[in-house]
């Protein structure tokens, strides 16, 4: 019976996720929104498949949050913190403090007293680490400037929860706050509670350092993989229980445990052990958020809640944009940053229940706040979509309109288009041989950065005829196309071939497909960007396996010659395949073909080194 219930619940959750997430993803809305919708659908107010009486859903949600925060904590390596200390403390600090004050000000204006107003401000200051990081990663924006800034601010918010949890009891309205749910049931004064928080934090850190690490070392030495994973889970669950016992948030406790273990030598092992659970647990969490949305409450006060959600998002967005501007974030990146973090966060749920327990805010306001934060999280994917579909395109279409730099170097023999991770190496090698090179790049940030390092780089689009003229394309000998944008690269090739037929082209090829297309355009000097380093690695691997260095090197060279030839042969072969599907098939079969031919082909002949063997 028990098992049946559990299995049924698991079935419902998994079915909801499998049914809705792919649809949301197909519609370009991201997986987060899919999970949230799944939660709403199976929640107590629609299908009521889960959470009869509210207990089930919140119980599972709690576990999702707890696990997620453990992983977030594991990611928080001290050296990563240190590298981002400027953006974290500066930008993150400004965001938390300004948002707290602004929201508190608004709350005061609508007649809420100062202490609860401040509490609401702190509750709303956090954004959703789960949604923002998940979505930024999904859209490949995490390493952009806007993504990095978002990450830094999220880190600060994660840290800020600790002092906020310590401060919240001090804001209790009556001054004799009673924690009704406190397990030990004793009355504690706010200062005592603050003391308990500090004490528990200290205990976790000290325990993690001096107790947990030796235990893990011992377990690791046993080489029992599943016991190691079990121990990690035991630690998380244990801390969660202990935190509940003293009436603190289990999520905070496991988060701290994660941070402590992030410093240990077993971090990677823990991460890879728990990584498989991460996606599903996050999904579970989002489903729980969806299920916890109190639909009747929203139905009874739709305007109030809509107003609250709108104000929350607007205030956070404006402040984030302002802060981004202050930190000189480029405009398009600043939009990404502001849209990414304009929602309320999962910590808010923890803080709301904590604040309600300490009678900082009353339960009615607490319920309103939960609905507001949850709805703002539902809105988050839409905000990303607005940014992606409406805001960002206006920047990329503006890009070519931006004036290209005046080029004052005309007689250089080489034009280098693209000065990123590929082009800059080419540029440096040429520079060391004192070859004068005119460098063009389309990434304004990159141009800025490289110029600071004293390299002369011109901003401009190398596929534009007048820019190529200005760069001296009619007198130069070579143009090196080192950009990673395949379409643009082919555009440059076409322009050069049409207008500067004497200019020799050397092109970086992103992969086989790009290589084929370049070859079709008649570009012979193609360089697949990963070929060189993967061959270097193969040589190193062969040497570690006991091959003599020269033998390994020759094997790689033989492969390279052979592969360069194969690419050229397959390029002709793939010309008539115009259909996309046919091309995909082609790629698979040609890889198979490569392996087949390889087995039958003799290596580079070096029989000359063998003693004569008359037959």
């Amino acid at each position, binding site marked *: 019976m028990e098992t049946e219930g559990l299995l049924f619940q698991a079935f419902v959750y998994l079915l909801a996720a499998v049914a809705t997430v792919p649809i949301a993803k197909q519609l370009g809305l991201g997986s987060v929104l899919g999970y949230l919708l799944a939660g709403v659908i199976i929640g107590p107010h629609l299908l009521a498949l889960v959470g009869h009486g509210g207990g089930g859903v919140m119980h599972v949600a709690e576990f999702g949050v707890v696990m997620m925060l453990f992983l977030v904590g594991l990611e928080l390596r001290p050296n990563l913190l240190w590298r981002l200390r400027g953006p974290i403390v500066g930008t993150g600090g400004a965001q938390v403090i300004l948002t707290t004050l602004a929201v508190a000000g608004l709350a005061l204006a609508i007649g809420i007293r100062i202490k609860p107003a401040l509490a609401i401000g702190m509750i709303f200051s956090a954004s959703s680490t789960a949604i923002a990081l998940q979505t930024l990663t999904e859209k490949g924006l995490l390493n952009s400037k806007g993504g990095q800034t978002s990450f830094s601010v999220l880190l600060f918010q994660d840290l800020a929860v600790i002092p906020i949890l310590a401060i919240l009891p001090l804001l209790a309205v009556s001054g004799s706050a009673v924690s009704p749910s406190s397990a030990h049931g004793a009355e504690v004064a706010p200062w005592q509670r603050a003391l308990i928080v500090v004490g528990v934090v200290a205990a976790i850190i000290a325990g993690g350092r001096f107790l947990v690490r030796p235990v893990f070392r011992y377990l690791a030495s046993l080489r029992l993989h599943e016991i190691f994973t079990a121990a990690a889970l035991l630690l998380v669950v244990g801390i969660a229980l202990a935190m509940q016992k003293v009436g603190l948030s289990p999520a905070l406790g496991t988060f701290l445990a994660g941070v402590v273990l992030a410093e240990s030598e077993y971090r990677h092992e823990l991460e890879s052990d728990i990584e498989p659970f991460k996606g599903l647990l996050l999904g579970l969490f989002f489903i729980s958020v969806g299920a916890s949305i109190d639909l009747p409450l929203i139905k009874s006060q739709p305007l109030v809640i809509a107003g609250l959600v709108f104000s929350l998002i607007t205030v956070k967005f404006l402040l984030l944009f302002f802060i981004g501007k202050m930190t000189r974030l480029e405009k398009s990146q600043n939009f990404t940053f502001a849209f990414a973090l304009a929602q309320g966060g999962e910590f808010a749920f923890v803080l709301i229940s904590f604040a309600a327990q300490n009678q900082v805010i009353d339960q009615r306001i607490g319920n309103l706040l939960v609905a507001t934060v949850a709805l703002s999280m539902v809105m988050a994917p839409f905000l990303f979509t607005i940014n992606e579909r409406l805001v960002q395109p206006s920047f990329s279409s503006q890009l070519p309109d931006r004036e290209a730099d005046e080029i004052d170097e005309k007689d250089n023999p080489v034009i280098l288009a693209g000065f990123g991770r590929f082009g800059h190496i080419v540029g440096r090698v040429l520079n060391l041989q004192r070859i004068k090179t005119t460098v063009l790049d389309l990434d304004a940030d990159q141009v800025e950065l490289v110029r600071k390092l004293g390299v002369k780089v011109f901003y401009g689009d190398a596929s534009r005829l007048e820019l190529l003229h200005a760069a001296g394309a009619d007198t130069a000998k070579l143009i090196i196309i080192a950009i990673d944008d395949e379409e643009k690269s082919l555009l440059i090739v076409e322009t050069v071939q049409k207008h500067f037929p004497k200019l020799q082209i050397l092109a970086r090829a992103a992969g086989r497909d790009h290589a084929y297309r370049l070859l079709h355009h008649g570009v012979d000097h193609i360089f697949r960007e990963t070929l060189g380093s993967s061959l270097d690695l193969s040589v190193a691997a062969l040497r570690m396996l006991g091959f003599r260095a020269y033998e390994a090197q020759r094997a790689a060279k033989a492969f390279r010659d052979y592969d360069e030839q194969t690419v050229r042969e397959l390029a002709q072969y793939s010309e008539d395949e115009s259909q996309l599907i046919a091309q995909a098939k082609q790629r698979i079969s040609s890889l198979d073909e490569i392996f087949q031919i390889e087995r039958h082909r003799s290596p580079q*002949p070096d029989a000359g080194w063998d003693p*004569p063997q008359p037959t």
Partner: protein
Amino acid sequence: MPTSTEPMANKVLIQFAHPALQKSRVNRRLITAVRNLENVTLNDLYEEYPDFSVNVRREQQLLMSHDIIVFQHPLYWYSCPALLKEWEDLVLQYGFAYGAQGTKLNGKWALTAITTGGPTSAYQRDGSNYFTIRELLRPFEQTVRFCGMVYLPPFVISGTLALKNEDQIAGYVALYRRAVESLRDGSFDAGEFEHVSYLNEILQRSPAAA
């Protein structure tokens, strides 16, 4: 088979080995002088195989499609630059260049054309190099013989370190060009080879040899 009576021009392959041609004063000029001659193929080994991975098949094809092989290089430590030695090791395979079935090079002519920094006077018993150039080139001579080829008296330009005079260099360049052209046109008298130590002697004896 190259003889003086052959009506067709011989095909000449120049196997050139110089690891730092950009610093060369004499070899670069020599190369330029013979590079575009008809029926002469220049195989610039260091340009072809900068990573020493000699394409054996290609090299053997080249050898088979030519009648006369010229090994042109500076003399490094009484021998050739390293890549040419690697070339020998890999290309002159058993069963191709030597052994019962290794007859692919039989009857071809082979010439060593070298430059030396020191003067001829240093290459004798009382000189700093003790041995004569001809003696020092014995390994090449025997390699060629072992492969069934005819070893020609070597073409030598010595004392290149002291060679500052433009006219003198131009003189050597013209001499080398004449040597290659004569080989191609079959205008050498094979009987003369036994009577001289260096090809230069024959060329200088008959300035208008043709």
